[in-house]
């Protein structure tokens, strides 16, 4: 840390939204060349804080000084002009355009002129961020797309770089590569404010951490001297209940997939190639992989939203199910949690009660709706899964992301399925709720259900899976027992296809330079 004045000083910053104090008198300092972690649950106020520093949100009270000068950006343009950059968690890229064209779109008109491709190449060489300005974004992996956002940020020569959950879409190797870049940037005297809820990477990367909970700063600590568990407990404010896993004997094969191949449904989608796996009752099969490697297509095929040509490709309890739609599969004991909650797993404009009907097996599909039963079911889900809501008559849209996720998972778990297939079941929910969801999934398995969890969160998969397979480039590796796997090994598999028969080897580029 530098001995001169800190680069960023936040004092007493507050922001209220109707009914909630998102950020409550937060103070923190980031020194020059420091990598400072901002740690907290979903809804702890991290994002609001960062948006205030970036000029997207105006604070109600408090002040910021940047480089020793009072600083109150009214819009991101002013923040960027002073040297504050933000790399978003979700990318805003056009898939049909090239890297250089996308970068140009995000820059002020003056900065986008001239030899942009040359400058991109220069910056990416300078920091070891490998990227080809002439490639089309649609053909890039998620990790490569993130590099575009980072390069775009660096082209404006920022002194403070804020990153919102940057590794949530990266393989472990890609994350390690990112950390090298960040360290190089810090060594140049640039400061980094790094937002995450992943303890391990914060302990590996940062020298100081500010922990937020419920809009307030709970602690400032040196993460290297804390354990992952102590950091997590600071974040959630209570002790963590580890999900229990019982080593029950595996039952008969309930779900069997044989040579599942499907062309992509959308442009830039991923084709599934000869995917095969079996899941026994009592077993949890984890499917790891970086987003965009065929998870969406696999979920569509397992759900029955897209049907396969040969019925025996998907077998439920010994009988072919490849030609069954979602309703038939539910009748046969399946339940599904798709990755996208709003608009896929739930209808935004309908009430929670109405959303019960979406996947209900008990409510008659042939005739009249029993609203009493649907309401009772909604109340049960809300109570069992601790969904924070003003009432079950409220629309699905009105719930926060994490609460809606709890509601959707709860709705499916409570149908007591024999085959449970979920994509990203704890995405965006806090550690306490995520432990509860994991426990519910393990209990399902214990009662004899076959469970498939598609997730990008390796910690989650290691915690609840019996076996883990990796999906990369639309192919699935053979599932191996959790005990026989390491994070590094999985990460390598996630970086590229294991069967290197495809001539372009597009997805291999992510791993090629590791």
């Amino acid at each position, binding site marked *: 840390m530098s001995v001169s004045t800190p680069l960023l000083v936040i004092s007493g910053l507050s922001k209220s939204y109707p009914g909630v104090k998102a950020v409550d008198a937060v103070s923190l300092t980031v020194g020059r060349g420091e990598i400072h972690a901002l740690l907290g649950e979903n809804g702890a106020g991290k994002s609001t804080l960062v948006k205030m520093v970036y000029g997207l949100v105006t604070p109600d009270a408090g002040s910021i000084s940047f480089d020793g000068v009072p600083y109150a950006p009214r819009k*991101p343009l002013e923040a960027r002009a002073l040297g504050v950059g933000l790399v978003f968690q979700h990318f805003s890229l056009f898939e049909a355009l090239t890297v250089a064209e996308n970068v140009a779109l995000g820059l002020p008109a003056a900065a986008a002129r001239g030899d942009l491709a040359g400058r991109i190449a220069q910056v990416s060489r300078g920091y070891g961020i490998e990227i080809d300005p002439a490639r089309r974004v649609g053909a890039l992996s998620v990790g490569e797309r993130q590099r575009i956002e980072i390069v775009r940020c660096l082209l404006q020569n920022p002194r403070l770089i804020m990153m919102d959950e940057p590794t949530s879409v990266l393989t472990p190797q890609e994350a390690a590569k990112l950390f090298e870049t960040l360290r190089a940037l810090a060594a140049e005297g640039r400061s980094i404010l790094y937002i995450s809820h992943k303890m391990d990477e914060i302990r590996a990367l940062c020298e100081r951490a500010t922990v937020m909970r419920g809009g307030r700063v709970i602690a400032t600590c040196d993460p290297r001297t804390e354990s992952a568990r102590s950091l997590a407990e600071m974040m959630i404010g209570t002790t963590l209940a580890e999900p229990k896993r019982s080593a029950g004997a595996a039952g008969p094969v309930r779900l069997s997939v044989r040579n599942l191949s499907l062309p992509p449904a959308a442009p830039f989608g991923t084709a599934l190639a000869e995917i095969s796996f079996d899941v026994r009752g009592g077993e949890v099969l984890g499917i790891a992989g970086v987003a965009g490697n065929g998870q969406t297509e696999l979920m569509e095929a397992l759900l029955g939203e897209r049907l396969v040509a040969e019925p025996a490709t998907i077998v439920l309890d010994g009988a072919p199910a490849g030609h069954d*739609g979602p309703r038939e599969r539910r009748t046969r004991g399946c339940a599904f949690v798709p990755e996208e909650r709003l608009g*896929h797993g739930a209808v935004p404009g309908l009430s929670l009660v109405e959303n019960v009907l979406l996947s209900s097996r008990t409510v008659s599909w042939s005739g009249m709706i029993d*609203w009493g039963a649907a309401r009772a079911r909604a109340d049960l889900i809300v109570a069992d899964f601790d969904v924070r809501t003003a009432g079950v008559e409220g629309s699905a849209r009105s719930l926060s992301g994490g609460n809606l996720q709890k509601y959707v998972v709860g709705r499916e778990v409570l149908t007591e399925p024999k085959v449970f297939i979920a994509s990203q079941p704890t995405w965006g929910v806090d550690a306490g709720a995520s432990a509860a969801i994991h426990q519910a999934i393990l209990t399902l398995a214990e009662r004899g259900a076959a469970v498939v969890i598609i997730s990008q969160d390796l910690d989650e998969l290691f915690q609840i899976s019996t076996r883990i397979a990796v999906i990369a480039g639309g192919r699935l590796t053979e599932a191996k027992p959790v005990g026989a796997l390491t994070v590094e090994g999985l990460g390598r598999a996630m970086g590229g296809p294991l069967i290197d028969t495809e001539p372009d080897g597009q997805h291999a580029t992510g791993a090629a330079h590791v």
Partner: protein
Amino acid sequence: MLFATPFIAFALTLLAGVVLFWLLGKNPAKALMTIFVTPLTSIRGLAELTVKATPLILIATGLAIGFRAGIWNIGAEGQFTIGALTGGSVALWAYPGGGVWLLPLMMSAGALGGIAWAAIPAFLRTRFNTNEILTSLMLVYVAILLLGLLVQGPLRDPQSFNFPESRLFQPAALLPGLIAGTRAHIGFLIAIVVTVLAHILVTRHMLGFVTRVYGDAPHAAAFAGIPERHVVWLCFAISGGLAGLAGVFEAAGPVGQLVPQLPSGYGFSAIIVAFLGRLQPLGILAAGLLLGLTSIGGETAQITMGLPSATTSVFQGLLLFFLLATDVLVTHRIRIGRSMETA
């Protein structure tokens, strides 16, 4: 708040009417009285109101179910015409005979005719992903020309002295009247029954639920296991069938024969009725009566006050305009002079 906008829109329409009549040099108070009150003061006026409102309610109820799902059947006028044609053909085929079986047969033929015509855009959309707004609208003109062709040809009254019109329907093919000496017919009672059934469908039945799921989140409909083509076919079948039924009622009710002028814009006015009624069957019942009132009142004002014949259309257009405008203002906020930067 969204349920208050039809009333606000109606009030604004009245206000615009005052300005309009004042500019035309007519007494605004008298004109509005003639249009909105006079028809309600006589049995004859009330009977005419049911005659005008029946097709509007029937068609709008069907359209609304599709509109809730985001399926835009704009061609109800064509399905109405084909319904009148198929139902009327059954009457002419039985001419001069008939019995109690004839009217039910005509209604079935009319509804099926409407469904068949609506099946064309439904098929094109589900098979070729064709925009149903364009295809259903274009088929309106095909249907009207087809009616014109047939009443000049095979369906023409042999004693019509070459006028393009069919025979007058035999008594067994005419809808029983409701009030002696007026044109009110039992079609209005059927429209009320349809409203009640549609209300149950929309609020308590899975089919009504399915259309709302699809309209709000098509991807969630796929998750629930509702294929898009089922929703498209369901919506076109219901709206086409009801429009066809309205067509038979028009031919077997107030008109009593097939003539080229039979389609007189009910299929388009019904779109206004559907939105004015908030796509709710009970709201549509009220909106259908209101729109029926403007057209009768408009005709009366045309005769007694010498107002232009376009008055009715102007009023209906104003009503839809104000409704859509107030809806936008209720759900959105106007901000002038500031633009958000997208980062």
